[in-house]
């Protein structure tokens, strides 16, 4: 009887049962392995994700060539990672991520420009957030402050600081390290310290 509580036992048993080019239905497999139909279906889904299985008809399975090789090699299916992660990692949809994309497109920008491009109705105080973010990026040399300013409109306003993207390392927005002098660059996968003044 297959241990029903071990996450890898049922797929491993299924892999071995189907070896040799057999094509069996869920009912036959459930009888042979003493599993419920649901457990057979879940185990089959596990093998399908690994490209070890073909679904010949509804509820009828046969091993692929890769599956046959794995069965011959006596592979034990476990619940752990299946190797290195080749697929892309999702870029988080945050205000700072969107602002980083906008910086890339614009090249030169003010805080209001970034707010206009990156903010969504759910953002609390985007201007304040982005000002702090730009301060962090500037300290690490990723953004430089240009000598001229965009004209302000308020009385006695000194205008808006004009920034330029100085270092673009990739699409993932760097994050400002809390309490430390620097940023973490997810594209380079390392911390970048502040440039000493």
């Amino acid at each position, binding site marked *: 009887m297959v241990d029903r509580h071990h996450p890898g036992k049922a797929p491993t048993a299924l892999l071995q049962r189907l070896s040799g080019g057999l094509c069996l239905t869920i009912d036959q497999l459930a009888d042979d392995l003493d599993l419920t139909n649901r457990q057979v279906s879940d185990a089959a889904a596990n093998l399908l994700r690994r490209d070890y299985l073909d679904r010949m008809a509804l509820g009828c399975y046969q091993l692929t060539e890769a599956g046959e090789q794995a069965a011959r090699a006596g592979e034990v299916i476990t619940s752990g990672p299946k190797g290195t992660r080749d697929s*892309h990692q999702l870029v988080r949809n945050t205000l700072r*991520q969107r602002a980083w*994309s*906008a910086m890339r497109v614009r090249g030169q920008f003010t805080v*209001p420009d970034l707010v206009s*491009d990156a903010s969504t109705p759910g953002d609390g105080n985007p201007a304040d957030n982005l000002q702090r973010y730009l301060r962090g990026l500037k300290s690490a040399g990723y953004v430089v402050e240009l000598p001229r300013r965009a*004209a302000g*409109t308020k009385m006695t306003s000194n205008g808006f600081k004009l920034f330029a993207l100085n270092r673009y390392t*990739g*699409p993932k927005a760097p994050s400002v390290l809390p309490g430390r002098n620097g940023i973490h660059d997810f594209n380079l996968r390392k911390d970048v310290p502040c440039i000493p003044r």
Partner: protein
Amino acid sequence: MKPNFVETTNVQKFYAALKRVNERGAVEACMVVVDGKPGLGKTTTLSRWVAQTGSIYLRAQKGWDYNWLIQELLTELSIDPVTVKGRREKFARVISTLGDRAQSASLMGQTFGLVIDECDLVSNRAEIMEAIRGISDLRFLPTILVGMGTLRDNLRRFPQIESRAPNKVEFLPADLADTNALIESRCEVQVAPDLVDFVCRVSRGFNREILDAIAHIERFGMRIDPGPEGITLADMAGQAIMNDRNTGKPVCIPAVM
């Protein structure tokens, strides 16, 4: 000035073209050509769209060749080009990763696309344009080619690409309604219709000049107490309203209209 994004007619045309791409009949017709003179809001529109959708943005360079394009794409997809060997393998990684990204975006109900800015610089180069077509075709990825004057003409040289880009969006100067929408949405002081009309005329519909005018109107309007209609043309008589894009000189409102 309020940092609001205003959906002018040009922006609506751009969104409509993307909608047509999503609802297209021929799957390979997935290119959109965006062109127009500088200062009409192309960069602002694209910057907003790229930021909100997480799409891939590339800026074409004069010396681009096939390898450079693929390397830039790999970098934008967070893949170190050095770790992928060979042209074929690099192309395969680009295609598979773009497919994954498009699928993730569609699960979240978003459009994911590839934007190539300053496409005029490479639009007469068959090698680059065919590479873009190849990438776009394999994943039926919405591809937005952005340029100014020559892009549309150059594409006629490549019928196989031209046929994939039935959606063309030309950014045109803002009309009175667009000027009014821009001023109403971004200006922090109320502006009277006669001044809106004047701004529309002297700016010749260029967003850049309209925004310049809004800044001038705000600076003036904050200092006075405007009437119920807002700042009128008469209020600002003799004041500079914007700088002329050809001469760089300030454009002033005539003292006597």
